[in-house]
């Protein structure tokens, strides 16, 4: 679905943040992107959804250079849940979720019958139906994140990109969010690409992990294949013990 080829990227002529990234995302994958702060995770998402343009290399979306696609075309395929979602005004939940219909409606059409259903489904799937009349800025962090995911789902995307969807959430809400995402991945076959900071959570929910450091992919592949004691020490500079098998988890050593 997405091919990232030798991508080099830097902001405004500064030092490169991405140093030659190669990545292949297949349909139905659920990929976690892990790496220390400043390793270029968010920047990689930006390049892959076409809001940032690489200095060198290309990003192909379903075989076409993403730079040749109009924003609306991209938005019909890729939905992004950004890390920050500041709103200028008091919007109600339903209004925010309806924004996801933007790429599907012509400028001068005022009705969107398919859209109504997509919006209702998205709110149902994310469990925010009862919140529809609430002001988004007055919701809890977990509820708010669900609304943002609902907006992304209302876009009816093939690929869902999330930038730290569990940031600032407690473990209960983090798991709710990840369950929700996983369910969409399994039921609708939406390809998921998510930046995560919690290794355990990534290991629990993702099929594949890409480990990033200094703008380079250190390792990519299945969870047990990538999250080894050696690679984690190399990337995060901490000593850990990995307990494999069904109860996969990572224990941080003193």
């Amino acid at each position, binding site marked *: 679905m997405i091919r990232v080829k030798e991508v080099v990227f830097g902001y405004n002529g500064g030092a490169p943040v991405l140093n030659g990234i190669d990545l292949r995302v297949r349909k139905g994958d659920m990929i976690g992107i892990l790496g220390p702060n400043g390793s270029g995770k968010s920047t990689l998402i930006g390049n892959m*959804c076409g*809001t940032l343009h690489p200095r060198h290399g290309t990003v192909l979306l379903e075989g076409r250079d993403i730079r040749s696609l*109009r*924003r*609306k*075309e*991209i*938005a*019909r395929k*890729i*939905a*992004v849940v*950004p890390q*920050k*979602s*500041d*709103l*200028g*005004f*008091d*919007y*109600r939940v339903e*209004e*925010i979720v309806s*924004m*996801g*219909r*933007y*790429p599907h*409606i012509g*400028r*001068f059409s005022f009705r969107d019958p398919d859209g109504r259903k997509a919006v209702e489904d998205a709110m149902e799937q994310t469990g925010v139906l009862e919140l529809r*009349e609430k002001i988004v*800025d007055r919701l809890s962090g977990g509820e708010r994140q669900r609304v943002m995911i609902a*907006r992304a789902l209302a*876009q009816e995307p093939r690929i869902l990109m999330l930038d730290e969807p569990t940031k600032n959430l407690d473990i209960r809400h983090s798991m709710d969010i990840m369950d929700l995402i996983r369910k969409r991945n399994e039921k609708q076959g939406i390809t998921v690409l998510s930046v995560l900071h919690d290794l355990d959570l990534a290991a629990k929910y993702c099929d594949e992990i890409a480990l990033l450091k200094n703008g380079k992919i250190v390792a990519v592949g299945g969870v047990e294949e990538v999250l080894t004691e050696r690679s984690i020490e190399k990337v995060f500079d901490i000593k850990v013990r990995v307990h494999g098998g069904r109860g996969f988890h990572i224990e941080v050593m003193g």
Partner: protein
Amino acid sequence: MRTVGRRGTFIFLIILLLISILVGISIGPENLYLPHIVRGLISGLPGLDWAARGFTLKGPLGLESHFGPLPRGYQTIILDIRLPVVVMALFVGVGLSVSGASLQGLFKNPLVDPFIIGISAGGAFGYVLAVILTEGASIWISQFLKVLLSFLFSVGTVFMAYLLSRTGSKVPLTYLLLAGVALSASLTAATQMMVYLSVENPTPVIFSLMGSCSLTKWWEIGIVAPVILMGTLVLSAFGRDLNAFSAGEETAKHLGVDTERSKTTILVLASLMAAITVPFCGMIGFVGLMVPHIMRRFIGSDQRLLIPASALFGGAFLIICDLVARSLLDVTIPLGIITGLLGGIFFIYLLKAKRVGV
């Protein structure tokens, strides 16, 4: 207000607008009554001039009612003085409010006013420049140049702010806002200097700049109305884009908005709508700030509804402000003073209100 519903709000706004039009025509140095107003208005339609003269209505069953001619001057007062003022106030109110609502959405900032990005400062500069250039010239030349220069400088200032804030192929909105504020400050100072040094008698100039819809002529409405109607229609169609911008430029892109193109279109239309009012009505501040704000409380932030609602309420609001301006005291108070006064108080209220999201 939620219980009334959005449909109810719109019906209320339309009724409010109609009432304010009628009241606007009715109240003045001489208060006019509805039958006179209706006859005056009818007499303005082609071929219906008899409505102003005396006539007899014959009904069924031999019922007859006789109407004497309208009192002297009423026809002129209704058709050529009050109606144009009310219609102009209506369009200017619509223009400034829609422009304000759009710019607030675009800049994701509820404290933006169409005049903050330099439109009024540019307009005032052009106006005073025209006054100086046409000193001693005939009134028509001076009028024409005032309209032309204040419009050109209004639009020119926004364009200049746009160029100044452009980095590469992008125009970050925060830079644009700052450039507008900076240009406004410089132009205002330059205008004051021109008035101070070069204008022989500054009183009428200063009064004109204070903003007023009084003595509007129909041809002026002919210029202002099409721009504002077109702008309102097109910006209404950009409601979804503006919603997306309210979630931030980055999110707007994710949602599929061609941000640079939408931004340019919205900016150009919103500026034109505000700039076209400056040559004819001077600087009528704060309307573009207040009206969208009040409407947001009633119908929420969804720009698809906010723009038409702001248009309706803005029209009614400015008609009422103009009415207050011309009937509060014996002399007509400049409209800009009324809106500025209300706006200033409103601004303080906003600052003090807990729900302000800056």
